[in-house]
């Protein structure tokens, strides 16, 4: 199996989906000749031509709105929004049409499309280039939202999202784009949307993270085992909506303690929802209150200070020790 970065793995998934289904088409700003600002769509214009790889005008609302129409026609558009911070321009079309068209048309016009967007902090970018607003999409009926954490899950989840009959918001942790390589099989590989993965088994504490936060969480889990004798069960959430309540509840029922790591602002966040589900389904197993290491309810800091905002392994370790100590 070849080793590849997340960017290469995403490119592979797009290429294979386009190869096997001529309804799949890409659209977005600078995705054609330029291959995307992060190069995720590199070489696809040359391979599939201008009818399937559309370099669009600079208008996010226009990209998502026209993609919805293309999906209504029976194509499977995969629009890219250059940075998730710019999805706000498209919120209109996401909420009015992308999420609702199947329902409004009583099933006549399903919207099988994937909105890809790089999200999250840690790349020393300018304003509006570092947000994690996945909670918006989880809060919008009609959408699905998934976030891979590494090259292999990125490839498999993107294939699953493209094959899905409903609209999927696909958030790509851009801090992970080229951070490390993983083995990715040549043959198309998929993954069930709505299923989390146990990345590490453990008995003392359940830790839940997704996307770029899986790295500090995994590092913290290693140190907690090696230095503090705390055996962490780490869950890679992968699917924000629908969410794998069962895997979370089973794990928390076993460990009795839970810590959630996210870079998004706290209030009404995905972490809040996880806590609510644990409350509903595993309250009687809890030994300690569920805690979260989270971003704050502030505008994402300018990049000279972002390292203090983002959850890091040390902060996760301290929070984990607190949860385990609680009696």
């Amino acid at each position: 199996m070849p080793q590849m970065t997340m960017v290469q793995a995403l490119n592979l998934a797009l290429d294979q989906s386009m190869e096997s289904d001529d309804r799949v088409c890409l659209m977005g700003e600078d995705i054609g000749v330029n291959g995307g600002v992060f190069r995720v769509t590199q070489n696809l214009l040359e391979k599939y031509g201008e009818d399937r790889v559309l370099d669009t005008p600079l208008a996010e609302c226009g990209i998502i709105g026209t993609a919805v129409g293309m999906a209504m026609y029976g194509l499977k558009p995969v629009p890219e929004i250059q940075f998730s911070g710019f999805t706000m321009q498209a919120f209109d079309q996401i909420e009015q049409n992308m999420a609702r068209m199947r329902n409004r048309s009583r099933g006549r016009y399903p919207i099988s499309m994937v909105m890809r967007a790089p999200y999250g902090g840690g790349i020393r970018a300018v304003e509006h280039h570092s947000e994690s607003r996945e909670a918006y999409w989880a809060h919008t009926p009609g959408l699905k939202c998934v976030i891979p954490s590494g090259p292999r899950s990125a490839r498999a989840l993107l294939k699953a999202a493209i094959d899905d009959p409903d609209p999927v918001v696909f958030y790509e942790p851009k801090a992970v784009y080229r951070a490390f390589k993983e083995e990715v099989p040549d043959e198309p590989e998929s993954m069930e949307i709505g299923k989390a993965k146990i990345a590490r088994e453990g008995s003392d504490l359940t830790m839940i993270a997704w996307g770029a936060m899986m790295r500090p969480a995994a590092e913290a889990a290693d140190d907690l085992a090696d230095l503090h004798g705390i055996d962490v069960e780490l869950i890679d959430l992968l699917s924000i909506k629908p969410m794998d309540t069962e895997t979370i509840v089973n794990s928390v029922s076993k460990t009795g303690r839970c810590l959630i790591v996210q870079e998004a602002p706290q209030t009404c966040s995905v972490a809040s929802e996880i806590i609510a589900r644990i409350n509903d389904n595993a309250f009687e197993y809890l030994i300690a209150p569920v805690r979260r290491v989270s971003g704050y309810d502030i505008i994402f800091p300018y990049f000279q200070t972002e390292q203090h905002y983002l959850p890091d392994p040390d902060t996760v370790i301290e929070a984990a020790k607190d949860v385990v100590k609680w009696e």
Partner: protein
Amino acid sequence: MPTRTASKRSTTTEKVAERRVTEVVAPENERPMRKTIDLGEIEDLQILNEEGEVDEALDPNLSEDELKKIHRAMVMTRKFDIRMLAMQRQGEMGTFAPGLGQEATQIGQVYPLNSKDWFSPSYRSFGAQLWRGWTLDGLMLLWAGYYEGFEIPEGVNDTPFSIVIGSHVLPATGLGMAAKIRGDKSVVVTNFGDGASSQGAVAEAFNFASVYKAPVIFVLENNGWAISIPAEKQAAVREFARRGAGFGIPSIRVDGNDILGMIVAAQQAADHGRAGKGPYLIEAVTYRMSYHTTADDPKVYRKDDDVKAWEAKCPIRRFEIYLRNRGILDDADFEKIGKACEAEILEAREKFRARAKAKPREVFDYLYAEMPPELKEQQEEYFRKLDRKGVE
């Protein structure tokens, strides 16, 4: 009574007054310092004037049967409008948007479409929807708040309207882009109002359609009002058709109360799209004779006299003069047709009443192809609530 005389108001090619833009050229350049950029011309079209006089040179010469069919559709639209208002006032109908006075704009824009073409309407569109095959009782169900009303009739590619102003125009453009990509000959008609033309999403739609040469016919129904805001306050230019020209879209301004003018413009726009030449914009100048919706009171913001002035321009009245002068239909026929339409609407109302049954257990349906487990749980809880309340 005028007979078929050529109207003085034949097609005039209006030079848009402010279209000259000057460009400053660097002084060292040999060329003149300032030159004029030609931004093209916008046609102004009227074939059947308000006195019912026709410009014979421009008459599309439709067959008698076609003319009768169009006339009946316009009458049906108006009678339906009136009946819906009565039903709303009697508490049988939800809030709805009357289209009184816009019958020619409505029927004309969809006239050249076939069943493979797409129609993506705004909510003030039941004239066009009826023409496309939506049923009277279906539209009643829709406006009375029943899901079944949104079921799209088999055999046409129509879209349900969206309530947020102008939000359907981008997907309509995407339909046209997809048709182009797939090499199909179908065209898309999408309509919206003078108010919607202020929306950024509509401007983006013009641009995408133009860049990709998508076969989209934008019908900008300038009916003078966006609830209480008059067209004069909506835009600083008087000709909304300029909106298209600015995006490189061939644009025409049509008397929207002239059914023949609307049909000719729509046909020309459809031909343009089918020939692979891209989008077209039709500004249909008409007037919203009635309320914005039944929840609105126009007396707050406009004078009765303004509305009266448009009564003389009634699209049905002038078309009936034309039909009478050509000896196709007479006053007795008009009365008979009106009564037949009313009878059909009353019959549909009975069907509507029989079908009007709320189905609270369907509210979770059609959200996803397959209901995710977390939603299933919520549905079960909701069903238990209905059970407790004894709701079917």
